């Protein structure tokens, strides 16, 4: 420290720093608080998203790991159960380790069919070697071996988790009714799973049954869903894996741990997008900080000038400002972490719901990882925010002793540099265009995110240029048509571009984000609405009751299906079999439909492959299939290609008849004739059916008829065409609910920016305002002028943000969405929503002007000035 001030006074740096900083905090608590809040909100959102994502992933993986236990090799068929005799054929592999049979099932509680429980049917006598569970009897007492053995033969015995039983008020020994496939079944709660291990998986919705009971209850007598091995020696495990692959080419041989990896892969795009979106609010926060600190410097130009004349070095001034920024940023980030943790629980609920809807129907444990999990991102946020303060700190270097006292110095400085900002902005935009042309990296649109980032940065850099451009075009007209307060306000913004353009930039960024996401979501929704309308042609859709809240895994009994055909008014029944199979390293869905019915009554919308009806007819009874758009995009499948599927009868090649639009999942679907599927995969189970009614029959009365005529104990879930569509849109809206929340936060941060800027501007211009009052401006005229300023920022921010939002929406729809999910989204402007939202932003900016206006109002009156 070479300050001349500190020659005789060592702790000088600190002392002056505290005075330098705290006096300003005292003078401008609003700016300080709003900046802090802005940083905190941005960071909070990011932390919350990151933690919720982390919680969701680890909860899913935990559940998968707990379900797999110590098993390190498994054999299952492609969605169709294995014959149980395979266990006898393979039982000799027990010389290498343990071999355990597994049956899986889903069921829904009768009193709340929207919930569902996953049941693992295992050999309860041996399964403790693989999975971690502890069975309890009445009064939560651990069951003795003899007690367990007595319970074991019970053909309807189920072990539910303690957590679930407590929540439902169930006691051991009680009979509980469940929907299983399309039947109501009464199970006996023979014991509880202690709240650890398997008892904790899936947030307590995983149940155990003995394998014998599970086979009976789920209609899988003679069948197994999986064989699990625990092979201690890795060499043995590998050998066995290779042998099994050779022996059973049509079965899936895998390490159960891979399922967890697949989940992570499946969710990667979704998580990346969510995180990228949350990063924008940090970015907006960073601009707020930039704004705030540049104001702080401008407000202290005189003070710094005096300090410099007193011998304080440039370096010291920069250090002070940097230290101040750092403390501010740190405080904001810490506050943000606290908020973020609070927010994370709500985010987790929303995110979890979305993931369950779209990807994995597994209930989540509401347990957050530690903040360390978000550490990298918090650090990134901190760096971004600190980076935003550097320009202001460095700008102090330009304040020469004495010279700084001259008013308007910084304004001149800024205008001198405006062309640089504009150039940088244009460069950023050029970069944005360039990045948008690059392909995805590791399946994720990193360059797309980069492009969006550049677009937003460029936008802010171009803000001052835009303002002066706007002035040069409309300035003269404005002068003529506006009241004096309004024009003065406009000029005020222009005369202090260094600050106003930053406030504007932050708002523009937030508005652009909002507009683009609104357009993207609106377009997507409209696309889905159109798609649903085009493709859902049947009158009634029926699923087994157990499937209401879960995945399409339960099946309809052949007797139930038969009953539908006998209902008066039913013209055709279009049965559907849907299941997930491994293909080309990922899991894809097979959608096997009665094609003769679909081809004549329904339709699909083809992206390529010619006429939809003709294409569907070519699927009937033939080894042809349609590929959904996301799958075609991710695996570069074209019409006319041959797809090799490993069926129960060995590998078969099927011709791609076309690519069709499908928004039901992003991992991809092969659509084929159910008859072809059934013969190839030796599986004629049905997961749902669509009924086409004869003209003149009302769907509602047919539903009543069906419910009356179904065999007793049979329960199905019937939806009319309209109800199914509404349900689909409800899921859609639920999915995107979080994006609106995130936009709102970005906007709040931006509005805080306006509040800060205007307040500071007023305080900065106090002399000017006092003079205005002195020369005859009325109190309310000053107030109005401030409100006009806010209005100008709101208006210009909306205008620029809207225009930029259009560009960003293009990027989201055509680059980021396509690279992440692979959907074609038709452009659709959600006009009502946007005008309402932009109006709200405008009102919010006006409201943000209210506080500074009050500040201006409280400035000394004419009389006081006269006294002076």
């Amino acid at each position, binding site marked *: 420290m070479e300050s001349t001030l500190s020659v005789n006074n060592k702790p000088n740096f600190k002392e002056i720093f505290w005075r330098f900083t705290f006096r300003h905090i005292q003078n401008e608590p609003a700016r300080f608080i709003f900046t802090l809040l802005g940083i905190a909100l941005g960071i909070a959102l990011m932390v919350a998203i990151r933690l919720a994502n982390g919680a969701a992933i680890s909860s899913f993986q935990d559940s998968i790991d707990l379900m797999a*236990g110590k098993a390190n090799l498994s054999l299952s068929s492609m969605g169709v159960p294995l014959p149980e005799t395979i266990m006898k054929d393979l039982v000799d592999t027990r010389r290498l380790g343990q071999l355990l049979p597994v049956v899986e099932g889903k069921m829904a509680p009768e009193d709340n069919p929207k919930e569902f429980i996953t049941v693992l049917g295992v050999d309860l006598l041996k399964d403790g*070697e693989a999975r971690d*569970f*502890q069975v309890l009897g009445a009064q939560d007492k651990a069951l003795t071996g003899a007690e367990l053995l007595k319970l074991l033969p019970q053909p309807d015995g189920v072990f539910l988790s303690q957590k679930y039983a407590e929540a439902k008020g169930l006691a051991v020994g009680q009979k509980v009714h469940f929907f299983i496939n399309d039947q109501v079944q009464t199970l006996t709660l023979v014991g509880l799973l202690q709240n650890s291990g398997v008892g904790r998986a899936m947030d307590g919705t995983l149940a155990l049954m003995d394998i014998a009971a599970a086979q009976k209850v789920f209609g899988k007598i003679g069948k197994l869903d999986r064989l699990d091995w625990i092979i201690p020696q890795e060499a043995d495990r590998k050998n066995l894996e290779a042998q099994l692959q050779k022996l059973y080419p049509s079965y899936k041989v895998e390490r159960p741990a891979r399922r967890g990896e697949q989940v992570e892969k499946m969710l990667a795009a979704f998580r990346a997008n969510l995180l990228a979106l949350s990063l924008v609010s940090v970015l907006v926060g960073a601009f707020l900080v930039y704004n705030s600190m540049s104001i702080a410097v401008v407000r202290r130009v005189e003070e710094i000038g005096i300090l410099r004349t007193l011998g304080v070095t440039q370096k010291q001034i920069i250090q002070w400002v940097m230290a101040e920024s750092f403390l501010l940023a740190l405080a904001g980030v810490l506050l943000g972490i606290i908020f973020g943790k609070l927010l994370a629980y709500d985010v987790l609920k929303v995110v979890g719901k979305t993931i369950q809807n779209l990807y994995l129907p597994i209930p989540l444990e509401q347990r957050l990882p530690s903040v360390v999990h978000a550490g990298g991102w918090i650090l990134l946020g901190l760096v971004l925010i600190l980076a935003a303060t550097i320009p202001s700190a460095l700008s102090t270097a330009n304040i020469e002793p004495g010279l700084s006292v001259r008013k308007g110095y910084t304004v001149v400085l800024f205008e001198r540099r405006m062309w640089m900002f504009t150039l940088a902005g244009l460069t950023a935009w050029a970069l944005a265009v360039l990045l948008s042309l690059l392909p995805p990296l590791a399946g994720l649109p990193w360059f797309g995110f980069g492009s969006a980032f550049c677009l937003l940065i460029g936008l802010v850099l171009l803000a001052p240029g835009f303002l002066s451009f706007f002035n040069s075009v409309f300035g003269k007209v404005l002068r003529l048509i506006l009241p004096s307060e309004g024009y003065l306000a406009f000029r005020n913004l222009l005369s202090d571009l260094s600050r106003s353009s930053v406030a504007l930039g932050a708002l523009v960024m937030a508005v652009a984000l909002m507009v683009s996401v609104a357009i993207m979501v609106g377009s997507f929704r409209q696309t889905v609405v159109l798609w649903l309308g085009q493709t859902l042609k049947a009158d009634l859709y029926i699923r087994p009751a157990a499937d209401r809240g879960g995945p399409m895994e339960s099946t309809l009994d052949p007797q139930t299906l038969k009953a539908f055909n006998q209902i008066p008014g039913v013209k055709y029944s279009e049965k559907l079999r849907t299941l997930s199979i491994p293909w080309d390293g990922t899991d894809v869905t097979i959608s096997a439909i009665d094609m003769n019915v679909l081809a004549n009554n329904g339709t699909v919308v083809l992206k390529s492959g010619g006429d939809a009806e003709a294409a569907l007819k070519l699927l009937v009874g033939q080894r042809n299939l349609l590929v959904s758009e996301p799958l075609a995009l991710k695996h570069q499948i074209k019409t006319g290609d041959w797809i090799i599927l490993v069926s129960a009868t060995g590998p078969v090649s099927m011709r791609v008849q076309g690519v069709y639009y499908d928004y039901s999942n992003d991992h991809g679907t092969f659509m084929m004739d159910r008859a072809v599927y059934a013969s190839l995969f030796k599986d004629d189970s049905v997961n749902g059916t669509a009924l086409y009614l004869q003209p003149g029959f009302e769907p509602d009365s047919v539903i009543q008829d069906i419910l009356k005529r179904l065999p007793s104990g049979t329960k199905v879930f019937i939806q009319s065409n309209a109800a199914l569509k509404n349900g689909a849109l409800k899921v859609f809206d639920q999915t995107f609910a979080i994006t609106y929340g995130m936009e709102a936060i970005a906007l709040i941060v931006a509005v805080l920016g306006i509040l800060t800027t205007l307040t500071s501007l007023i305080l900065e211009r106090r002399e000017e305002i006092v003079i205005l009052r002195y020369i005859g401006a009325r109190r309310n005229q000053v107030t109005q002028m401030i409100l006009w300023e806010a209005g100008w920022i709101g208006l210009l921010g909306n205008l620029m943000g809207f225009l930029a939002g259009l560009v960003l929406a293009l990027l989201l729809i055509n680059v980021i969405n396509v690279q992440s999910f692979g959907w074609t989204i038709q452009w659709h402007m959600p006009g009502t929503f946007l005008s309402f939202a932009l109006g709200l932003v405008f009102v919010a900016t006006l409201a943000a002007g209210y506080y500074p206006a009050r500040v201006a109002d409280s400035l000394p009156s004419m009389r006081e000035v006269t006294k002076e």
Partner: protein
Amino acid sequence: MMKTKISPRSLGDSANKTKNFCRFSLLCLCVSVVILVFRSSPVYADFVYTQAKPNYHWQFPLDHGAHPNYKTEWWYYVGHLKDTQGKRYGFELAFFRVGLDRTAENASAFTPRDLYFSHFAVSDIGAKKFWYAEKMNRSGPGLAGASQGGVNLWNENWKIWHDGLGHHLKADGDIYGLNLMVQSPIPAVLEGIRGYSQKGSDKENASLYYSFPSFIADGQLRVGSELKTVHGKVWMDHEFFSGDMDPNEVGWDWFGLQLSDNTELMIYLMRQKDGTSHPASSGTFINKSGKSVHLSRAAFQTKVLDTWKSPRTGAVYPIHWKIIVPSQRLSLDVTASISDQELDTAQSTQVVYWEGSVDISGTKAGKDMKGEGYMELTGYDKAFSLPKP
């Protein structure tokens, strides 16, 4: 004799953890069925297990097969084998069936109506090494079972079956493998009184029990990767019953002794809480032609000459005995071929017992004689003698 063959050593490295609860439970149950007093008799609406009663009408070969109306049943093969170089091995291959609830209405093959345990042990007498493995299964899709009507037992790839020539024994573990055919020069010997073997004060503390005391065995024993041709003598027991052990009894000592003059002696002592043997303890002497003589408790005397204390469990086993059968003018010195043939399952089943090969020397009518045999000692663990705090 009632024997408990539970040796989860092969699986036991992760014992004592909750994961093993089920195996532990099962073994506990098996123990409780077989050894302990299983007082609370299960309530089955439509099915009651048949109790072992005197004057059972034996029908062979039908009775070599399973008796599913009895709750507990075992087929038990123990013996000594010699390879071409003269090395001696003791072995034991036992199949257990424990009946559970028969009334469950479930067509699933996994319905646990019976549980099947199998135990395979080898004593390398020259090397003083003892090894064992076990299997436990429900019948499932052909995983384990016991046919009715003849000897046909299987538990995974361990099998015993009769093909018209003899019994075939096949078992395989990580170190040892066994592939034998055994033939008996004499017909089955009914133990106790016409095959009704009472074990306690109550008539239902009894089993139906017969033996083949002098099977001639030929076949192969795999030791590591080496396949040895072996020849030897095997003792087979088959017992089935549904009753419990006398509440006053704490364990037992069983001997199956094959003497060099081609006669055999079976003795069991049911030990009571006070250390004395129950009056129902008895034995059987079988002469060269296979004729048997029932020996009541008063017809033989036993004396413990030496004990061995397990360094693992602290249990003290009588491994050296004097057995005198005055009516047959037999005076035998019975001593363990290997001191340590203890099965320590304290970590999982909390049951510790001793089961293994014994060497016999002594006199018959004053003339020197030798022999080989198997001995089983149960209830010497602290858990049995001292109630847990």
